[in-house]
């Protein structure tokens, strides 16, 4: 499924969604949701190659595994939150999208707090 096919898929979905907007507005939202899920599925399925290379790079540079895991977690949370809030905004409910984004930011902060503490501890060691 090359990028060209994904692009065509997106454009076909948008054209159909515009057509549906006059007939039944809610069906254009379902169409966009369906197309978004399919294209996101294609993107994610071709993502495991990149994650594998990141892991290999991690082993070369002796980065502690938990930092890499947290980094990936943050990217995953950001991706899911972006997908959901974008869909909410497309459907016209920006406030809900903002709520989802806020929750995503908070969960990323929660995920990254141990790393922050570790950094401050090392800094404190240097200070002593």
């Amino acid at each position, binding site marked *: *499924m090359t990028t060209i096919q994904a692009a065509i*898929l997106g454009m*076909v*979905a948008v054209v*159909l969604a515009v*057509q*549906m907007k006059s*007939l*039944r507005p*809610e*069906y*254009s939202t*379902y*169409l966009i*949701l*369906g*197309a978004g*899920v*399919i294209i*996101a*599925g294609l993107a*994610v*399925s071709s*993502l*495991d190659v990149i*994650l594998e290379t990141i892991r290999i790079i991690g082993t070369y540079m002796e980065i502690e595994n938990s930092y890499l*895991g947290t980094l*990936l*977690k943050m*990217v*995953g*949370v950001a*991706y*899911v939150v972006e997908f959901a809030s974008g869909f909410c905004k497309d459907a016209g409910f920006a406030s809900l999208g903002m709520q989802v984004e806020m929750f995503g930011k908070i969960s990323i902060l929660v995920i990254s707090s141990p790393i922050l503490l570790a950094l401050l501890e090392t800094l404190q060691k240097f200070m002593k």
Partner: protein
Amino acid sequence: MGVNLIFKIAAVGILVSVMCQVLKHSGREDQAFLTSLAGLLLVLFWIVPYIYELFETIKTLFAL
């Protein structure tokens, strides 16, 4: 998977809108609402497994 899901949703949308018009003009408002509800359920029935599969892959991929 892929394009035919989008065409299926569009087809259900067009069918439901036509049926609703016919039902509305023949004076059966409530059945028109029920038809659109049925269309909604059908489309959701198709899309929810894909959404679940997408979020599962993201969860396993990023070790969330």
